[in-house]
């Protein structure tokens, strides 16, 4: 028997090596009856155990999703203007069957809208990282700069992201750079603050090592500051990307163009509620993926 012929039924016996080492089974047993029942083999036992663990891990979230869908159906049943899960699913299948069509600037596939939004977030967030992380390092390293910047940051940080939009429109004249500006200004703070906190929390021991060895500023940065602060930087980056993705939908609703936020607004004008609900899920899932991706990155760089 080769693995090529494996089916779910015989896979277990292949893997358990049952027919590779037919030792204690006597030849008297007829060929078709040679198998021990699937679930009594080692593999079967492990399979049941694994299945149990799997169910334990999957059941609670699955239950949550089911409850959510039930509640949603209930609401959809009482309020006819809101489509239920089944209807929305059908609409989503249709929508994602052709995500990259292009019927002029006001009618593009969902794929284009997502990519456009990601592009804006990438630009605004990238600029924020390019400025925010070095700024955070400097604020953390120099007490004077820290005291100088602290009142400005304290005042600007709690400002609602969209309050920055008029300034952006005024200075930059166009909607596209204005929305990127909003992303930039609202996602820069977590990176500045976390990086600065990381630098300030470097154990004195490490700095003493640097001093005893008389390391150059460059070596101090590459061998001590940077690796010690990296986990903090990544926390800042993770928070920032969450904020950026949160803000882009609102910014695009106001500025228009191609993007998931504007698409939501457009579908509202078309009264296509199913699409609005789909957009909510799309925004949520893309945000989740962005954050999980950065979590993986952060794990890769944690040294403890």
């Amino acid at each position, binding site marked *: 028997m080769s693995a090529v012929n494996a089916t779910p039924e015989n896979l277990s016996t292949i893997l358990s090596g049952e027919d590779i080492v037919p030792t204690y089974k006597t030849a008297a047993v007829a060929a078709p009856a040679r198998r021990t029942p699937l679930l009594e083999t080692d593999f079967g036992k492990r399979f049941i155990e694994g299945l149990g663990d799997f169910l334990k891990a999957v059941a609670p979230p699955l239950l949550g999703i089911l409850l959510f869908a039930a509640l949603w159906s209930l609401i959809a049943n009482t309020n006819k203007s809101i489509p239920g899960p089944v209807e929305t699913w059908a609409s989503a299948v249709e929508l994602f069957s052709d995500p990259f069509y292009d019927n002029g600037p006001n009618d593009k596939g969902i794929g284009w809208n997502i990519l456009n939004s990601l592009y804006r977030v990438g630009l605004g967030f990238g600029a924020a990282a390019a400025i925010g992380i070095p700024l955070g390092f400097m604020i953390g390293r120099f007490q004077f700069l820290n005291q100088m910047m602290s009142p400005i940051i304290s005042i600007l940080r709690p400002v609602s992201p969209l309050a920055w939009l008029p300034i952006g429109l005024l200075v930059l004249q166009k909607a596209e750079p204005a929305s990127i500006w909003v992303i930039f200004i609202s996602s820069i703070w977590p990176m500045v603050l976390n990086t600065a906190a990381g630098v300030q929390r470097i154990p004195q*021991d*490490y700095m*003493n*090592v640097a*001093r*005893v*060895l*008389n*390391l150059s500023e460059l*070596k101090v940065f590459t*061998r*001590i500051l940077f*690796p*010690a602060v990296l986990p903090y930087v990544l926390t800042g980056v993770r928070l920032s990307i969450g904020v950026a993705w949160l803000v882009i939908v609102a910014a695009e609703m106001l500025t228009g163009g191609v993007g998931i936020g504007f698409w939501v607004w457009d579908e509202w004008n078309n009264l296509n509620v199913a699409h609005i609900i789909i957009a909510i899920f799309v925004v949520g899932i893309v945000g989740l993926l962005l954050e999980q991706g950065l979590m993986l990155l952060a794990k890769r760089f944690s*040294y*403890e």
Partner: protein
Amino acid sequence: MQSYVQIENASMVFSTKKGKFTALTDVNLNVNQGEFIALIGHSGCGKSTLLNLVAGLLDATDGVLLLANKEIKGPGPERGVVFQNHSLLPWLTAFENVYLAVEKVFGGSETKAQLKARTSAVLELVGLTHAANKLPGEISGGMKQRVGIARALAMEPKVLLLDEPFGALDALTRAHLQDELMKIVAATKSTVIMVTHDVDEAVLLSDRIVMMTNGPAATIGEILSVDLPRPRERLQLAHDPKYHELRSQVLEFLYSRQMRPKEAA
């Protein structure tokens, strides 16, 4: 013979939020080349502060510290420090931690291959060749401390400064590392100043024991010469009346004349 390390009228006053705190006052100590000095005293007596003054991590508010007739200003690799809690960089392997020091001190004059050979040699000296490529998180506390010692030794310092190097280790590991340190110091003829709160460690390892009075405003109370012949053997010393005599002199100083401030009050 000219003293190698000279500490003259050194005082250390810290400015804290509650006002000035005098940690050390009028400390005078001369250390000869190749000598092993133990600083002992109750916690808070400023023995680590004194070590940090020699290391240059702190600047004395008063007085002068000299090493080989040069004033000590700031830290430098000619004074190798082994920190209380090993202070290895957790993102570098044992080898890289030591190499960082080697590269700094000898990078200007030697090739990469020579630097690597130096690093390997010193890791072998502390018996860690097998763990060279492990991260600090992957090795035991005793091994970490040995890497710390290797890093300090690798710089071929004029003075080796040890700040309670074995304080955080269990008794057996500590004894083992003490024996190793004795061998290494004998082989490298290092000048050593070690802070400790362990009386046996002080008597076993040092040539002179500097006993410090209680803080604040601590100073040197008494200096005891340990004229036990070297090489010293832990087991033989256990039956040596001279060893017990020295040991009780230190205990006498610590627990009779310098009661802990709390207990005295």
